[in-house]
């Protein structure tokens, strides 16, 4: 039986996208989806399409910017990159995620 694939936790998709952009630099939507799946070793099941509303959401908030460019295979693609505000947002979200998961870990260990 293959390891069960986890649904992306509500609200964490934004964080994953921001983090991906932070470590990879400008990248297109397909690239982001692939990267998230690779890093999670295919454990994370992503409806790749849901990425796009998320990207729009982040862009509307001014955390990421987009620009049309050409991919390595000479294909037209839209490239996303982190803005200054996005970088700040990422730091805050990582911090709060760590606080949160540390707390949950403590809870799980003590009980």
């Amino acid at each position, binding site marked *: 039986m293959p390891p069960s694939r986890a649904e992306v936790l509500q609200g964490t998709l934004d964080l994953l996208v921001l983090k991906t952009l932070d470590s990879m630099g400008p990248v*297109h*939507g*397909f690239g982001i*989806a*692939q990267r998230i799946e690779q890093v999670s070793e295919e454990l994370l099941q*992503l*409806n*790749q*399409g*849901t990425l*796009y*509303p998320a990207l*729009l*959401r982040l*862009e*509307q*908030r*001014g955390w990421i910017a987009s620009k049309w460019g050409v*991919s390595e*295979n000479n*294909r*037209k*693609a*839209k490239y996303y990159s982190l803005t200054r505000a996005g970088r700040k947002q990422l730091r805050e979200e990582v911090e709060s995620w760590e606080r949160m998961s540390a707390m949950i870990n403590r809870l799980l260990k003590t009980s």
Partner: protein
Amino acid sequence: MRDLCLVFIHRLVALFHRRHLDDDLDAELRSHLEMAVELNLRRGMTAEDARREALRRFGGVDRIKEIYRSQRGLPVIETTLRDLRFGCRLLRRSPGFSLSAILCLTLGIGANIAVFSWIEGILFRPFPAVVHQERLLALSGTARGTQDSTDLSWPDFVDFQRACTQIDLIEDKIMGTTLSIGDRAERASGSIVSPNYFAALGIHPVLGRGFTADEGTGRNAHPVTVISYWTWQERFNGDPGIIGKTQVLNGLPYTIIGVAPQGFYGTFVGYAMQFWVPTSMQERFDAGGYKLEDRGARWIEGFAKLKPGVTREQAQEEISAVAKRLAAAYPATNRGRGIRLLPLWQTPFNKASELLPTLGITLAMASLVLLIACANVSNLMLVRSLARQREMTIRLAVGCGRGQLLKQLFTEGLVLSMFAAAGGLAVAYGCRNVLAMFFPAPNGVALNLRGELDWRVLAFGAGVCLVSTLLFGLIPALQTAKVDLAAALKFESGSVVGGRGRSRVRSLLILLQVSLGFVLLVGAGLLIRSVQEMRTASPGFATEDVLTTGLDLFSAGYDAQHAKNFQDELSERVRALPGVKSIAFARVRPFSYLPYSTASILVDGYQAAPDEQPAVEYNEVDPAYFATLGIPLVSGHDFATTDTEAAPLVAVVNETMVEKYWHGEDPVGKRLQVNGRWMQVIAVARNSMYWTFLETPKPFFYVPLRQNFSLRAVLHIRTSAAPETIAAALAGEIHALDGSLAPQEVITMREHIERSTSAQRIAMTVLSLFSGLALVLAVVGLYGVMSYMVSQRRRELGLRMALGASASDLLRLVMSHGLALTAGGVVLGVAAALGLTRLLGYILYKVSPRDPLAFASAFVVMTIASLAACFLPAWRAPRIDPVRALRD
């Protein structure tokens, strides 16, 4: 918060390039899928598998797009825009329906906006140039024992101004003069104003300055004037060096010290002022003599301007307290007197008071017209909603919510009424100056009665637009939303669903229209009768063969003695003209704006109430006055030419005065004290009207002009000759006596009185117009319903014919249906009219609000109109081909 704003802006911007963004998204998703397919191919899948796997991993493309789009724009606005676009498209598709609906509504909405803009411009905000005109209140003097508003005296005014801390008092007394500039002489209106006038109103002269405080005092000491922008431009050709030049007014050169800004016409509703002079110059403009030190001479009209943050009640309290102090300090002149501060629309002394009831009634009528128009549009929409039955059913069937459906229907209605509101604004703009047409300008005095199209009027228009959308949209919308899906889908397309309920609703709408139209017809009938009554009524003096004109010896610089000689000589010459029976000078002409003199009186044997100070109006007249105007004397004898300055003072009183002060006993030979002087009563004159036809009989008396001389007098000539011949002859005689003098316009008293009844004529004209409109709308509505009924009942009518009904049977059938509707409407209309016409009571003269003739004529007109409306559809009914009707 900042985030939310950013998001909102993004979404808003996105609304405007939806198409571009859609293309963008398509391209992006396509490129994603292609990359995925490519990768899968590289991993060794078949082309088909690669594609399927890519799509599977992506999830539903269309669903994603939908989520994406709803997150990108503003869905509420987008659907509204869509509904609006759809509404416009529908309107374009049935231009006949749209045009008739928009026309109906334009008339209804336009009438309301136009009337409201008049009310705004004349009653609520008559002085757009004045800073904070909402803080202006009209000053109205009160006296115990009368409801009438009185003017103020200058000493009182000054005391009020000094003592009141919460208001600025502003004096503004209209007066006229001859303005001679170059070789052009014309009548001009100006105002005597308190020196704070311009400063308190916040009016900054464009050139020069306003008046200074010291220019208000000193008898005739400050011959300075501020001229209006219009005068500067039109009469002085915009001369930039105008300040410091002089202009002769009433024979005295005045230094022009300022030019008022454009758009400032003074503060007398109705007239546009051409110049202003300070109070100190009162005597030069008032033939009644010097009044600035006389507390008993009440001649000032004016306003109070509230200081910031002060309410009317506080100011009223303060000024009442001061009035009480003055009454105690000067009982001879001020006993029982007070001051009321009234909002501008209740101003007692200008055209506002004359027009207030008329405008109120007009607005009520306009709203009735709007109701009728809405009923008509509602009817049209009901017919159309029938044609759209199928569309609605399908919308419901494919999952459109009823709420959404209603929203769409209202949006469509809104499109209609927005077009109509735009048209209505154009109508109102075109009608801005219509009211001025009812007031013939006396001798070139500029009129200023305009509607004001400010934001309040626009807001009112928007409100009317929304309300009417709700009114005419409600019934069709409810009918549509009631559609029974299962039942509707079972029927063939084009068949009638809910026809019965709908036609009942339409009949109800017709009832409403007919009854409202009937009310307006009755109202118009009443006003027409009233104006007719006025035209033929006797005001208590002769009107047909009496000519009248003005002759301003005061402005021409005469002194009293010269004026008396002049009058004597002129009377002599005019009496000698062929056809002239008599001639009489008098200070005031009945039914004119110029006020009569008022005197405090004392009568032996009359006990006044503790704080009543009896005051009665009077006129100064020549001995021939009663004969010339045909006012009979019921006892005693007429004034004689011997009643001159040297002779004992005499007076003639009217019947009401006898009733009130002598308790009906003949006062001839008794004495009467007028302003402290005793006079002997020598006759009693029959009552007549003094101001308007609507007044109640009031005490009044006459004194000889020679014993109470005034330089400014009017002429009355009794003659059988035509006005034109007398006018020419009179001008000739005057010219022969003094080459520099000319009489004012020579008209009959009848013409003069008619000019003074403008308010009634406005109401009559507007109401006639509105009732005509209402009639047309009601007839069109009735016609529509009847034609529709005939087409709807084709099958039934055809069957009847096949079974042997004759053409006249069918005609009767349809006609009787239409007439039944009319009869019902008229019955409702009679009931409504009996309740509503009471509102007209204010302006009706000698006509009862329940005048049977007005009701009968309205009935006849309505019946004929509806017969006409029903006839065509009824005539068509027997011409239905029974074979085809039954086969269809």
